[in-house]
């Protein structure tokens, strides 16, 4: 049986949508988020949209942060079930 898991990056999330971080492709981004207390498995909710969709603001673990789009594209998410 094949199971497909819908995967997308943090940069592709729409405002208000939620997702769970499944992997982070850049070690640097991973470290920067870890320092803020955000790790794989954390639920992220996207905040409003900035012009050009960059930077990207989201809330995870009660912390609201923003990341540049380039960095947010390294953060892969799966849909919250």
């Amino acid at each position, binding site marked *: 049986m094949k199971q497909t898991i819908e995967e997308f990056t943090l940069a592709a999330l729409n405002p208000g949508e939620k997702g769970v971080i499944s992997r982070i492709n850049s070690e640097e981004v991973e470290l*920067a988020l870890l320092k803020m207390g955000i790790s794989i498995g954390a639920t992220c909710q996207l905040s409003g949209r900035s012009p050009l969709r960059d930077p990207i603001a989201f809330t995870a673990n009660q*912390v609201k942060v923003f990341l540049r789009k380039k960095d947010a594209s390294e953060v892969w998410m799966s849909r919250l079930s």
Partner: protein
Amino acid sequence: MKENSPLIALVGTPNSGKTSLFNVLSGLNQKVGNFPGITIDRKLAEISLTNKQKVRLMDLPGTDSLYPSSQDEKITCNVLKNPDHPDHPDKVVVVADGTQLSRALLLCSQVMDLKIPVIMVLNMADRMTEEEISINEDKLSQILGVPVISVSALKKSGLKKLKQVMGSDLEVSDRPFMRIPAPFLSVLEPIKESLNTDSDYLVYQALLDPESLGAKYEDLINQAREEAKLTDETARRLISNELLVRLDKVDGILTESKFRIGREELSLSDKMDEILAHKIWGYVIFIAILMLVFQAIFSWAEGPMGLIEGLTESISTLLKNILPKHWTQELLTDGIIAGFGGIIVFIPQIAFLFFFITVMEESGYMARVVYLMDRIMRPFGFSGKSVIPLMGGMACAIPSIMMTRNIPNRTERLITVMVTPLMSCSARIPVYTLLIAMFIPSKSFLGFDQRGLYMTGLYFLGFFAALLVAFAFKKALKYKSDRVFVMELPTYRMPRWKNVGITVWQKSLDFILGVWKVMLVISIVLWFLVAYGPGDQMQQVEQEYTELLSADNLTEDEVVELEMEKGSKMLEASYAAIMGKTLEPVIKPLGYDWKIGIALITSFAAREVFVGTMSIIYQQDDPDSLDGDEAQEKGRIALIDRMRAEKKPDGSPLYTPAVVLSLIIFFAIAMQCMSTLAVTQKELGNFWAAIMLTYLTLLAYVAAFVAYQVMS
């Protein structure tokens, strides 16, 4: 302050309310100094606990973890991680934002593993209630093995208990949070001995982040790194792993201590962001706030500035009247007091600007500005955080350059520092006012004062020059913004006015302390260069005019005329004139003569000195030293009339529009501020200070040259 009373450090994540707690605990006892060698504030206060027990309390810059990512964070890490550091604390109070506990516990667990006694403070207890966040404190304290105290710095609750615990003997937990990877254990032992610590983790930290211990242990650490086959690459991976393990453990602790978040819906803060960080309204509001700030700097600050000018002038006049006429009296009044007056007159503008910046930071709004501006600023090699120093640069570059320290990326910080002096600071205003008035009539254009429009134009010129130069630096340094930039958007809160007051006071003090030595020396040197000359030329002039003035039949006007002539002849015989004449061939292509040369030399100390020097050269009262707006305007007109009458050797007027424009451009760009240079040298070192001086001077020269040649 007794150096041997115990030292307690406040440590916390940014925005945890740490500084508020420090202010509440210390009142106005605090002494702000610098950490040795760097200009990061070191806030210290001696406070009394119970039973006449005294401790020293230190506020350290906020940090997310013990692995620093900016200059500010580095100092906190160095102090905690290096037992040899003179500020290494005896105890640490970890201040946690009660609404972001996992983040706070991450930091707390790291500090605990350093085997420094820890007290954990749950700050913002009032907000926890508001957001229906609850936790069993006793349970948390029991699991962690450290005292946990709920405090609200805002409502001043829990402080008594905190003080009591701060004074008691604290045990160091012997259960490390994290197990050090086995291959490292053997190499740690010898270093532990020489560092005189029993914390494995402290030494492990030193291996992963060798900078924290300083040069003394460099060889030892490098040797151990080699032995354990540790590369930078693996070090980074180990750091990630460590944080992951800690976060995992923290999660478990939170569950065990019954941590619950009651509310799920959007908080007020999120609702505010829907407007303040909106893709259109956000910018509209930011621009409106900027306009308010300008209004404050230019209109509201005028009153206090006039008062200060009047005051220095009266002190100077008073001293001139009561002290005997002697060179020391002239040195005191024309040199030292004039110099100090020149500094403190800028305090109102600087205080206003920092008032706004601090309110914006305290309230959490500044992070939204960074969020809104980051994308726009990035192509120029800036960070969103550069907006703050650039705004500050419109009052004064000195404190603004100090504010760049929280920009984590070194290149972005460097670029920001390099272009901040191009922003039109308040010291340029008197220069611009004089020069614009020389060839622009005070007429209204579309309802605006024409001169005001030119002035505004010069602010834009400064801003665009900053953008262009930043872009050039970005290209020259081949900089690509490839470093990760994460920033918190903290919950909005009412600014604590006490914090705002303290910060404004400290920034104003920073400015005075940053410039007074330079200004004092320069004022004395300038006074000497103008008051003395080689050989006995000056005495000859003096003698000649004493004879002329002693004639009986002189009218009052004639006396004034002769006095002025004498002054300008004396100046011509001074050392300053020699310097101006030496400089003349260089500045001739810009349309300047040796007299302007003198003013360029003197205004290297600070731009506004230009106006004062012009008045000395042309024997008029310095308009900025006169009492009252009307008198100043009159003084300015008198000086302008005199300057307009100045002729070149061939009889044509010296101050053509081309020359005036060339001067304006020169002052818009040139590095005419010793103190900015001094601050840059402190922040970035000799090399970058030299680069700044060179590029600004060359650019100013070329731009002024082009302006003059095109116009004439």
